[in-house]
C-alpha cells in the first residue's frame, strides 16, 4: 500500500501534459514559473528553491511528500495493520479453550458414548444370532446323520432280504430241475425198454411173418 509511489507515478505522467501552475499545498509552496519574473504577483520562493525547474518538480514533489507529514492524506488512507498483535491473541485462545470444554461436554462425550453403546449392542446381537445359528446348524447336522444311519440300516436290511429270497428261489428251482430231470431220465429209460421190447416182439413177429410169406409165395413147396 504505497500511496506515495502512486502519487509519484501519476505526477510523472502528468508533468509532460500539465503546464499550468501548481496550486500550493499548505506545507509546500512552489512556483512553476521562473523565479526571475516577480511582476506576476506570485510570492517568490527563497533562493534555494529557485533551482526548482519545471522538469524537476514532480521528483521534488514526490520527495517532499514522502518526507513531510501528510495530514490531509493520513485521515483518508491509513497504514494497513496486518501484523498487529495485541490482546486479541490470548482472547481467542481462551475462547477456543472454553469452546473445546463446552463442545466436549455437550457433543463429543455424550454422542460418542451413545454411538459406542449402540455399536456394542449391535455387535452383541450379531454374536447372539451367530450363536443361535451355530446351534441350529449343529442340530441340522445331527438330524442329517440320523437320517443317513436310518437309510443305511434300511438298505442293509433290504439287501439281506433280497439275498435270502433269491437263495430260496434258487433252491426251489434246483429241486424242481432235479425232479424234472429225474422224471425225464425215467421216461427215457421206459422208452428204451419199450423200444427194446417192441424190437424183440417185432423180431419174433418178423420171423413168423417171413415164414408165412414164404409159405404163401412158395405154395408148392
Amino acid at each position, binding site marked *: 500500500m504505497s500511496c506515495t509511489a502512486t502519487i509519484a507515478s501519476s505526477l510523472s505522467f502528468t508533468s509532460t501534459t500539465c503546464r499550468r501552475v501548481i496550486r500550493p499545498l499548505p506545507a509546500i509552496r512552489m512556483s512553476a514559473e521562473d523565479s526571475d519574473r516577480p511582476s506576476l504577483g506570485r510570492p517568490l520562493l527563497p533562493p534555494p528553491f529557485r533551482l526548482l525547474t519545471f522538469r524537476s518538480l514532480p521528483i521534488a*514533489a514526490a520527495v517532499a511528500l514522502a518526507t513531510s507529514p501528510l495530514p490531509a492524506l493520513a485521515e483518508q488512507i491509513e497504514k*494497513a495493520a496486518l501484523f498487529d498483535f*495485541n490482546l*486479541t491473541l490470548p482472547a*481467542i*485462545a481462551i475462547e477456543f479453550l472454553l469452546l473445546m470444554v463446552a463442545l*466436549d461436554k*455437550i457433543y463429543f462425550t*455424550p454422542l*460418542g458414548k451413545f454411538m459406542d453403546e449402540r455399536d456394542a449392542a449391535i455387535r452383541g446381537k450379531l454374536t447372539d444370532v451367530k450363536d443361535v445359528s451355530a446351534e441350529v446348524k449343529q442340530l441340522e447336522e445331527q438330524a442329517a446323520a440320523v437320517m443317513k444311519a436310518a437309510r443305511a440300516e434300511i438298505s442293509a436290511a433290504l439287501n439281506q432280504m433280497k439275498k435270502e429270497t433269491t437263495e430260496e428261489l434258487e433252491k426251489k428251482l434246483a429241486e424242481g430241475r432235479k425232479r424234472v430231470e429225474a422224471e425225464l431220465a425215467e421216461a427215457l429209460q421206459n422208452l428204451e425198454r419199450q423200444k427194446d421190447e417192441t424190437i424183440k416182439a417185432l423180431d419174433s413177429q418178423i420171423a413168423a411173418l417171413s415164414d408165412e410169406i414164404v409159405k404163401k409165395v412158395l405154395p408148392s413147396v
Partner: protein
Amino acid sequence: MNVIPCSIKTLKGLYDISGVEVGQHLYWQIGGLQIHAQVLITSWVVIAILLGSVIIAVRNPQTIPTNGQNFFEYILEFIRDLSKTQIGEEYGPWVPFIGTMFLFIFVSNWSGALLPWKIIQLPHGELAAPTNDINTTVALALLTSVAYFYAGLSKKGLGYFGKYIQPTPILLPINILEDFTKPLSLSFRLFGNILADELVVVVLVSLVPSVVPIPVMFLGLFTSGIQALIFATLAAAYIGESMEGHH
C-alpha cells in the same frame, strides 16, 4: 490542473468505491491493551452457531438417528477417524481438541464466505472471517504447539527431550528449529489462504460486479474447507509424532 490535490481526490474516490479495508481494525480498549473487536464479534457468532446447532441436533439421541443427529454422528466419526489415523490407539482424549480445532476453523472460514457481514456497518474496519486476522491463526497454532508438547511430556516425561537428538545429534539445531517452524507454518498457511481469498473476492466484486466472482467464491469455499482439514490433520499428526514410541 491541480496535480497533487487531484491525485488525492482520485485516490480517495477509488478508495470509497472499492472499500477494500485491508488491515483496518475496530479497536477496543481493555485495560491498557487494544483488541480487534471485529474478530471478537465474529468469533462469538461462530461459537454461537456451533453450540446452537450442536445442542439442537443432539438433544435426544435415538437409536435410529434423525437427520440432524445423523449429520453430527458423521462429523464425529470423521473426526475420530482423523485422530485415530494420525495419533494411533490412544486417540480418545485428543478427539475434543482436534474436533474443536476443525469445527472452529471450518465454521469461521465458511461464515466469512457465506454470511452477509457487510449488512452490519462498523465505525471502523469491517466484519469478516475471524481467521483472516493474524492473532487468531497464531493463537490456534500456539495452542497446537502447547498441545503436542503436553502430549509428549505427559507420555514420556522428561525423556521427551531425547527426541531432539533422534536419529543423530547432528540434527539437533534442525529439530529445535522445527519447534518454531511448525506453529509458524500452521498460522501463516491459514492466515494467508483466508485473507488472500477474501481480498481476491472483494477486488473482483469491485471491478467486475457480475457473475464473474462466483466461481472464485466457490473456489474459496473449497480451499477454506481444505485448510480447516489440513490444520486439524497437521495438529493431530504433530501430537501423534510426539506420542509415538521408540522406533
